[in-house]
Protein backbone atom coordinates (compact mmCIF):
# COMPACT_ATOMS: atom_id res chain seq x y z
CA UNK A 1 0.00 0.00 0.00
CA UNK A 2 1.03 3.58 -0.66
CA UNK A 3 1.14 6.02 2.23
CA UNK A 4 2.20 9.65 2.15
CA UNK A 5 4.48 10.53 5.05
CA UNK A 6 5.41 14.20 5.33
CA UNK A 7 4.64 14.63 1.65
CA UNK A 8 6.77 11.67 0.53
CA UNK A 9 5.24 8.53 -0.90
CA UNK A 10 6.17 5.35 0.98
CA UNK A 11 5.37 1.86 -0.22
CA UNK A 12 4.75 -0.95 2.24
CA UNK A 13 4.29 -4.62 1.39
CA UNK A 14 2.23 -5.36 4.46
CA UNK A 15 -1.52 -5.47 3.92
CA UNK A 16 -2.19 -4.64 7.56
CA UNK A 17 -0.16 -1.91 9.22
CA UNK A 18 -1.00 0.00 12.38
CA UNK A 19 0.64 3.27 13.44
CA UNK A 20 2.71 1.51 16.11
CA UNK A 21 4.27 -0.76 13.44
CA UNK A 22 4.80 2.18 11.11
CA UNK A 23 6.67 4.09 13.83
CA UNK A 24 8.96 1.09 14.32
CA UNK A 25 9.54 0.76 10.58
CA UNK A 26 10.46 4.43 10.38
CA UNK A 27 12.78 4.08 13.39
CA UNK A 28 11.02 6.86 15.27
CA UNK A 29 10.27 4.96 18.46
CA UNK A 30 12.89 6.71 20.56
CA UNK A 31 11.90 10.20 19.48
CA UNK A 32 9.39 12.70 20.78
CA UNK A 33 6.93 13.30 17.96
CA UNK A 34 3.28 13.92 17.17
CA UNK A 35 1.21 12.50 14.32
CA UNK A 36 -1.55 13.93 12.23
CA UNK A 37 -3.40 11.21 10.32
CA UNK A 38 -5.51 12.42 7.38
CA UNK A 39 -5.74 15.82 9.07
CA UNK A 40 -6.56 14.57 12.56
CA UNK A 41 -4.20 14.29 15.51
CA UNK A 42 -3.91 10.73 16.83
CA UNK A 43 -2.82 10.30 20.44
CA UNK A 44 -0.17 7.71 21.22
CA UNK A 45 -2.65 5.55 23.09
CA UNK A 46 -4.57 5.07 19.83
CA UNK A 47 -1.60 4.17 17.62
CA UNK A 48 -2.10 0.42 17.88
CA UNK A 49 -5.79 0.68 16.94
CA UNK A 50 -5.17 2.95 13.95
CA UNK A 51 -4.75 0.86 10.80
CA UNK A 52 -3.42 2.49 7.68
CA UNK A 53 -5.12 2.31 4.30
CA UNK A 54 -3.85 2.94 0.79
CA UNK A 55 -3.52 6.65 0.09
CA UNK A 56 -3.49 7.78 3.74
CA UNK A 57 -1.64 10.98 4.54
CA UNK A 58 0.49 11.35 7.64
CA UNK A 59 2.32 14.32 9.08
CA UNK A 60 4.94 13.43 11.69
CA UNK A 61 6.44 16.40 13.51
CA UNK A 62 9.16 17.00 16.08
CA UNK A 63 10.46 20.03 17.98
CA UNK A 64 13.41 21.81 16.35
CA UNK A 65 15.38 24.96 17.04
CA UNK A 66 13.39 28.14 16.50
CA UNK A 67 12.80 31.63 17.79
Amino acid at each position, binding site marked *: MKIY*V*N*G*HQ*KNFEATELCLTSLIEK*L*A*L*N*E*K*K*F*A*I*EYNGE*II*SKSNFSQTFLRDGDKL*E*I*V*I*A*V*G*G*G
Partner: protein
Amino acid sequence: MESDKFLIAGKHYLSRLLVGTGKYKDFKETQTAISESGAEIVTVAIRRTNIGQDIKEESLLDFIPSEKYTYLPNTAGCYTKDDAIRTLRLARELLDGHNLVKLEVLGDPNTLYPNVVETIEAAKVLIKEGFDVMVYTSDDPIIAKQLEDIGCCAIMPLASLIGSGMGILNPHNLEIIIDNAKVPIIVDAGVGTASDAVIAMELGCDGVLMNTAIAAADNPILMAAAMKKAVESGREAFLAGRMKKKFYQADPSSPTSGLIK
Protein backbone atom coordinates in the same frame (compact mmCIF):
# COMPACT_ATOMS: atom_id res chain seq x y z
CA MET B 1 15.60 40.69 43.13
CA GLU B 2 14.05 37.50 44.48
CA SER B 3 10.75 39.29 45.16
CA ASP B 4 10.42 40.76 41.67
CA LYS B 5 8.91 37.69 40.10
CA PHE B 6 7.54 37.48 36.64
CA LEU B 7 4.15 35.83 36.22
CA ILE B 8 3.05 34.16 32.99
CA ALA B 9 -0.18 32.17 32.83
CA GLY B 10 -0.15 31.60 36.59
CA LYS B 11 3.49 30.48 36.85
CA HIS B 12 6.31 32.51 38.37
CA TYR B 13 9.67 32.87 36.66
CA LEU B 14 12.85 34.46 37.93
CA SER B 15 14.31 35.29 34.53
CA ARG B 16 12.71 37.93 32.33
CA LEU B 17 14.79 36.87 29.37
CA LEU B 18 13.14 34.39 27.01
CA VAL B 19 15.29 32.85 24.30
CA GLY B 20 14.95 30.98 21.05
CA THR B 21 16.79 27.81 20.08
CA GLY B 22 17.33 28.44 16.38
CA LYS B 23 20.40 29.31 14.28
CA TYR B 24 23.04 27.81 16.60
CA LYS B 25 26.02 25.87 15.25
CA ASP B 26 24.93 22.69 17.04
CA PHE B 27 22.82 21.52 19.99
CA LYS B 28 25.78 21.78 22.36
CA GLU B 29 26.16 25.47 21.59
CA THR B 30 22.39 25.92 21.93
CA GLN B 31 22.51 24.29 25.34
CA THR B 32 25.47 26.32 26.61
CA ALA B 33 24.13 29.64 25.35
CA ILE B 34 20.71 29.04 26.90
CA SER B 35 22.28 28.04 30.16
CA GLU B 36 24.42 31.21 30.19
CA SER B 37 21.38 33.36 29.39
CA GLY B 38 19.64 32.19 32.55
CA ALA B 39 16.39 31.91 30.56
CA GLU B 40 13.68 29.62 31.87
CA ILE B 41 11.29 29.88 28.92
CA VAL B 42 12.67 28.71 25.56
CA THR B 43 10.97 28.74 22.21
CA VAL B 44 10.98 25.77 19.86
CA ALA B 45 9.61 25.32 16.34
CA ILE B 46 7.48 22.41 15.13
CA ARG B 47 8.60 20.80 11.88
CA ARG B 48 8.27 17.61 9.85
CA THR B 49 10.76 14.99 10.95
CA ASN B 50 13.20 13.57 8.40
CA ILE B 51 11.98 10.13 7.47
CA GLY B 52 14.60 7.42 7.25
CA GLN B 53 17.03 9.14 9.57
CA ASP B 54 19.45 7.54 11.97
CA ILE B 55 17.68 6.29 15.09
CA LYS B 56 20.49 7.65 17.21
CA GLU B 57 20.29 11.15 15.73
CA GLU B 58 20.33 13.77 18.46
CA SER B 59 17.22 15.73 19.19
CA LEU B 60 16.93 19.30 20.47
CA LEU B 61 14.72 18.41 23.44
CA ASP B 62 17.44 16.11 24.84
CA PHE B 63 19.67 19.17 25.22
CA ILE B 64 17.06 21.41 26.82
CA PRO B 65 15.28 19.10 29.26
CA SER B 66 11.70 19.82 30.28
CA GLU B 67 12.68 19.46 33.96
CA LYS B 68 14.80 22.58 33.60
CA TYR B 69 13.00 24.69 30.99
CA THR B 70 9.48 25.69 30.02
CA TYR B 71 9.02 25.06 26.32
CA LEU B 72 7.29 27.68 24.24
CA PRO B 73 6.34 26.08 20.90
CA ASN B 74 5.92 28.67 18.17
CA THR B 75 4.11 28.97 14.85
CA ALA B 76 7.02 30.45 12.93
CA GLY B 77 6.48 30.10 9.21
CA CYS B 78 2.67 30.13 9.46
CA TYR B 79 0.87 32.64 7.25
CA THR B 80 -2.75 31.72 8.02
CA LYS B 81 -4.73 31.23 11.19
CA ASP B 82 -5.48 27.64 10.19
CA ASP B 83 -1.79 26.75 9.80
CA ALA B 84 -0.98 28.33 13.16
CA ILE B 85 -3.80 26.53 14.96
CA ARG B 86 -2.86 23.21 13.33
CA THR B 87 0.79 23.65 14.35
CA LEU B 88 -0.04 24.39 17.98
CA ARG B 89 -2.48 21.49 18.28
CA LEU B 90 0.36 19.23 17.12
CA ALA B 91 2.71 20.95 19.57
CA ARG B 92 0.34 20.24 22.44
CA GLU B 93 0.22 16.56 21.46
CA LEU B 94 4.00 16.46 21.02
CA LEU B 95 4.65 18.08 24.41
CA ASP B 96 2.20 15.93 26.37
CA GLY B 97 -0.63 18.42 26.81
CA HIS B 98 1.51 21.52 27.26
CA ASN B 99 -0.69 24.63 26.82
CA LEU B 100 1.72 27.59 26.85
CA VAL B 101 2.37 28.64 23.25
CA LYS B 102 3.76 31.46 21.16
CA LEU B 103 1.37 32.46 18.41
CA GLU B 104 2.74 34.30 15.42
CA VAL B 105 0.97 34.58 12.10
CA LEU B 106 3.16 36.21 9.51
CA GLY B 107 2.01 38.47 6.72
CA ASP B 108 4.92 38.61 4.35
CA PRO B 109 8.04 36.46 3.81
CA ASN B 110 10.39 39.41 3.30
CA THR B 111 9.58 41.41 6.41
CA LEU B 112 8.05 38.59 8.51
CA TYR B 113 5.73 41.34 9.71
CA PRO B 114 2.76 39.95 11.64
CA ASN B 115 -0.66 39.63 10.02
CA VAL B 116 -2.64 40.93 12.96
CA VAL B 117 -6.05 40.09 11.49
CA GLU B 118 -5.17 36.39 11.17
CA THR B 119 -3.39 36.55 14.54
CA ILE B 120 -6.51 37.79 16.33
CA GLU B 121 -8.69 35.11 14.72
CA ALA B 122 -6.19 32.36 15.60
CA ALA B 123 -5.89 33.60 19.19
CA LYS B 124 -9.66 33.43 19.69
CA VAL B 125 -9.79 29.79 18.62
CA LEU B 126 -6.71 28.77 20.62
CA ILE B 127 -7.92 30.45 23.80
CA LYS B 128 -11.28 28.69 23.45
CA GLU B 129 -9.34 25.41 23.17
CA GLY B 130 -7.55 26.07 26.46
CA PHE B 131 -4.19 27.31 25.21
CA ASP B 132 -2.27 29.98 27.11
CA VAL B 133 -1.37 32.26 24.24
CA MET B 134 1.68 34.51 24.24
CA VAL B 135 1.23 36.48 21.09
CA TYR B 136 3.70 38.09 18.69
CA THR B 137 2.28 41.26 17.23
CA SER B 138 3.12 44.65 15.78
CA ASP B 139 3.74 47.64 18.06
CA ASP B 140 0.20 48.93 17.38
CA PRO B 141 -1.33 49.82 20.78
CA ILE B 142 -4.91 49.17 19.60
CA ILE B 143 -4.13 45.66 18.34
CA ALA B 144 -2.15 44.93 21.52
CA LYS B 145 -5.16 45.89 23.62
CA GLN B 146 -7.52 43.80 21.49
CA LEU B 147 -5.26 40.76 21.90
CA GLU B 148 -5.28 41.31 25.66
CA ASP B 149 -9.06 41.70 25.70
CA ILE B 150 -9.64 38.38 23.96
CA GLY B 151 -7.52 36.66 26.60
CA CYS B 152 -3.89 36.38 25.49
CA CYS B 153 -1.68 35.83 28.55
CA ALA B 154 1.23 37.96 27.24
CA ILE B 155 1.48 40.49 24.44
CA MET B 156 4.75 40.43 22.51
CA PRO B 157 5.21 43.43 20.24
CA LEU B 158 8.18 43.63 17.92
CA ALA B 159 10.99 46.11 18.55
CA SER B 160 11.90 45.86 14.85
CA LEU B 161 11.73 43.12 12.21
CA ILE B 162 12.49 39.52 13.21
CA GLY B 163 16.20 38.80 12.94
CA SER B 164 17.02 42.37 11.89
CA GLY B 165 18.94 43.45 15.02
CA MET B 166 17.70 46.99 14.41
CA GLY B 167 16.79 47.57 18.05
CA ILE B 168 13.76 49.46 19.35
CA LEU B 169 12.44 51.62 16.53
CA ASN B 170 9.38 53.01 18.27
CA PRO B 171 9.86 53.25 22.03
CA HIS B 172 6.86 55.58 22.36
CA ASN B 173 4.45 52.99 20.96
CA LEU B 174 5.86 50.42 23.37
CA GLU B 175 5.27 52.87 26.22
CA ILE B 176 1.62 53.29 25.23
CA ILE B 177 1.21 49.50 25.05
CA ILE B 178 2.86 49.06 28.47
CA ASP B 179 0.78 51.83 30.08
CA ASN B 180 -2.49 50.29 28.89
CA ALA B 181 -1.73 46.65 29.64
CA LYS B 182 -2.69 44.42 32.55
CA VAL B 183 -0.83 41.39 31.17
CA PRO B 184 2.94 41.09 30.66
CA ILE B 185 4.40 42.95 27.69
CA ILE B 186 7.42 41.22 26.22
CA VAL B 187 9.47 42.71 23.41
CA ASP B 188 9.86 39.97 20.84
CA ALA B 189 12.07 40.43 17.81
CA GLY B 190 14.52 43.07 16.70
CA VAL B 191 16.88 43.25 19.67
CA GLY B 192 20.44 43.36 18.35
CA THR B 193 22.70 43.87 21.33
CA ALA B 194 22.66 44.27 25.10
CA SER B 195 21.76 47.98 25.11
CA ASP B 196 18.58 47.24 23.12
CA ALA B 197 17.47 44.80 25.81
CA VAL B 198 18.30 47.33 28.53
CA ILE B 199 16.19 50.00 26.80
CA ALA B 200 13.24 47.63 26.45
CA MET B 201 13.37 46.84 30.16
CA GLU B 202 13.88 50.48 31.17
CA LEU B 203 10.74 51.36 29.22
CA GLY B 204 8.89 49.01 31.54
CA CYS B 205 8.59 45.88 29.45
CA ASP B 206 8.09 42.78 31.57
CA GLY B 207 10.53 40.74 29.54
CA VAL B 208 12.45 40.36 26.31
CA LEU B 209 12.41 37.45 23.87
CA MET B 210 15.33 37.05 21.50
CA ASN B 211 17.07 34.48 19.37
CA THR B 212 19.24 35.93 16.61
CA ALA B 213 20.90 38.58 18.81
CA ILE B 214 22.51 35.74 20.75
CA ALA B 215 22.83 33.03 18.10
CA ALA B 216 24.27 35.31 15.42
CA ALA B 217 26.80 37.04 17.69
CA ASP B 218 30.44 36.19 17.00
CA ASN B 219 30.51 34.60 20.45
CA PRO B 220 26.97 33.47 21.26
CA ILE B 221 27.89 32.17 24.71
CA LEU B 222 29.34 35.52 25.78
CA MET B 223 26.40 37.41 24.25
CA ALA B 224 23.99 35.17 26.17
CA ALA B 225 25.72 36.17 29.42
CA ALA B 226 25.60 39.84 28.36
CA MET B 227 21.87 39.63 27.64
CA LYS B 228 21.20 38.11 31.06
CA LYS B 229 22.88 41.10 32.71
CA ALA B 230 21.21 43.56 30.32
CA VAL B 231 17.71 42.35 31.13
CA GLU B 232 18.47 42.33 34.84
CA SER B 233 20.04 45.78 34.89
CA GLY B 234 17.31 47.26 32.71
CA ARG B 235 14.68 45.87 35.06
CA GLU B 236 16.48 47.22 38.13
CA ALA B 237 16.85 50.65 36.52
CA PHE B 238 13.14 50.65 35.70
CA LEU B 239 12.22 49.71 39.29
CA ALA B 240 14.70 52.24 40.69
CA GLY B 241 13.10 55.03 38.65
CA ARG B 242 15.48 57.11 36.60
CA MET B 243 16.33 60.74 37.37
CA LYS B 244 14.60 63.46 35.38
CA LYS B 245 16.43 64.67 32.31
CA LYS B 246 17.41 68.34 32.65
CA PHE B 247 18.04 70.05 29.37
CA TYR B 248 20.45 72.99 29.24
CA GLN B 249 20.96 72.97 32.99
CA ALA B 250 23.84 71.17 34.64
CA ASP B 251 23.73 70.19 38.31
CA PRO B 252 27.09 69.52 40.02
CA SER B 253 27.47 66.28 41.93
CA SER B 254 30.16 67.77 44.22
CA PRO B 255 29.55 70.48 46.87
CA THR B 256 29.55 74.04 45.58
CA SER B 257 30.75 75.34 48.98
CA GLY B 258 34.17 74.91 50.62
CA LEU B 259 36.10 75.45 47.45
CA ILE B 260 39.78 76.40 47.91
CA LYS B 261 40.15 80.11 47.37
